[in-house]
């Protein structure tokens, strides 16, 4: 049995108007992007202690997309944020609640430590099935792992239509409509709900959490979920990992800058231009 077959009973039947779309946003909790990141040479994992944890910046765009959609659809549309991570990062989710999400689900279990990309997507998919959804919205990438593979894998394991790299998003008549960014323009794509969409930063700047949102976030729930709740047919965490990180290395040090010595600006500009041209950069 594969994960895809592990029960599609979660699918909610959409009754007509979109006024009650259940939106779930997957959120990763990552070290503060500007902090200095260290990798434990023993476990080869990112050191998470002593570093401030924040919501993955790309996922803030997904939250924004969900909240904007909720505002547009109105009715009983809800936004749930769904995260998986170490227990001590749970409170980071309050920011999403302060931004306006209705509630949160936090999947945390020592047995999930050491998950590779497959394991992460598998656990998330099982969790999403448990939570139930009409529309899953993901950020395109995580700031720390940066595999960019999770939205695609989730689509597969959930067995729902997937639209990646959306720059705009709407739900009409039980269908999700999106503009997919491509290298030279965009495609207009649609698919029936339930579905998954990953968004780009073009979807719109994430809103600030207002003071009222912050004060109200305390009263919202962050429901816990553990490995036992997932009833996974396959081993997860490090035990089930299909890939192994063998080694890592810091990026090669930057080469010494070449300083242009020129008698005047025009000559200097010409030398720099020729250099860039030679490197095929202009």
């Amino acid at each position, binding site marked *: 049995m594969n994960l895809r077959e592990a029960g599609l009973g979660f699918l909610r039947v959409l009754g007509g108007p979109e006024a009650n779309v259940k939106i779930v946003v997957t959120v990763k909790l990552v070290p503060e992007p500007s902090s200095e990141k260290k990798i434990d040479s023993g476990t080869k994992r990112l050191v998470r202690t002593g570093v401030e944890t924040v919501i993955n910046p790309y996922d803030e765009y997904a939250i924004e997309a969900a909240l904007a959609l909720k505002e547009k659809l109105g009715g009983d549309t809800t936004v749930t944020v769904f995260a998986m991570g170490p227990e001590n990062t749970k*409170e980071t989710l*309050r*920011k999403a609640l*302060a931004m306006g999400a209705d509630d949160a689900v936090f999947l945390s279990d020592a047995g999930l430590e050491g998950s590779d990309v497959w394991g992460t997507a598998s656990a998330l998919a099982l969790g999403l099935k448990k939570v139930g959804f009409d529309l899953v919205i993901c950020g395109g990438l995580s700031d720390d792992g940066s595999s960019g593979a999770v939205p695609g894998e989730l689509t597969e394991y959930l067995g729902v239509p997937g639209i990646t790299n959306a720059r705009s998003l709407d739900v009409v008549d039980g269908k999700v409509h999106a503009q997919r960014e491509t290298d030279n323009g965009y495609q207009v794509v649609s698919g029936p709900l339930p579905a998954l969409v990953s968004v780009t930063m073009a979807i719109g700047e994430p809103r*600030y*959490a*207002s*003071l*009222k949102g*912050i*004060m109200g*976030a*305390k009263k919202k729930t962050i429901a816990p979920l553990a490995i036992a709740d997932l009833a996974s047919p396959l081993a997860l965490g490090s035990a089930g990992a299909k890939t192994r990180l063998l080694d890592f290395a810091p990026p090669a040090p930057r080469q010494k800058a070449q300083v242009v010595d020129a008698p005047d600006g025009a000559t200097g500009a010409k030398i720099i231009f020729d250099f860039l041209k030679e490197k095929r950069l202009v």
Partner: protein
Amino acid sequence: MNFDLNDDQKAIQALAREFAQAEVKPRAEQMDRDEAFPYDLVAKMTELGFMGLPFPEKYGGAGADTVSYALTVMEIARADASTAITMAAHVSLGATPFYLFGTEEQKQKYLVPLAAGKMLWGFGLTEPNAGSDAGNTQTRAQLRDGKWVINGTKAFITNSGTDLTGGTTITAATGKRADGKPEISNIIVPQNAPGFTRSKKYKKMGWRASDTRELAFVDCEVPEENLLGERGNGLKQFLQVLDGGRISVAALSIGLALGAYDEALAYAKERQAFGKPISKFQAIQFKLVDMLGEIEHAKLMILKAAWEKDNGRDFAQTASFAKLYAAEVSRRVVNEAVQIHGGYGFMDEYPVSRMYRDQKINEIGEGTNEVQRLVLARMMGL
């Protein structure tokens, strides 16, 4: 004893920092140059809930505490002092008197729209001939036929003439006390009261994007019900407002100092002299150490005053110490920040030159350094 901020305080501080760095800081230089009041930033601060931050939710506020308020003012001042005073004067001086002394009806009429940022409000204590000596108020208000008839002038009143301003609450002599001294009361004067006019904005050395004007009252009439609090309690009420205001002005001073420190630190690491970054010279390191050290000391005292206020303690003395010390620290820090920048620090394009100008008012407004020392000496029983 616990020095940790709670989750709300942390989240509010993070929000204020994110907002100030992303939206306020990039605008500060231009606003200062153009003396442009930041209407759009006020609108954004309104949306975020900053303009009614410490007031209860039932009056349209965000219901946050004084610690959160001080942290917010600090973060905004770190980006721009003009924007910070616009917010801080609105909250601490404009709206607070209604919260403290207003009847329920006055709270609904004034505090609710003020907390919601729909309207700004001024606080008019200072006069051309009564600043530190605020008890020497020359402005008179006489009760005639159910109306207060006001004559006099107020000087240097913040937020008194913007397009959003709804009015100003002023101190005025409403009679004589038994001991022969003037009886001073607080009167609410809406912008459209007949006989009330505002001057053009003053030309200022600092806080140039904030709105400061002179107010003139010539047979200005307002209804009798516009008395705020008890008749004769005006000075006492204003002094109580200023006690709380000191926490926010102190936060404003230290926010400015932090902003100058941020600039100086970045510049010291980047500027090369004698073949290395100037941050490698011990003389520069010592300056930066002293700057951050003093900022931290002042911050502790500000947060202590805020904590005392939140916990219903008598906070007046701590707030006054915090205001005095933070104002003086801000002077030393901006001075060294410019020094670390060398000649560039004297140039308009460098934020430290604006901060240097914005600093001086910290030692004058809401009680000069001298007046703080006077007040403190009195509190210490001297």
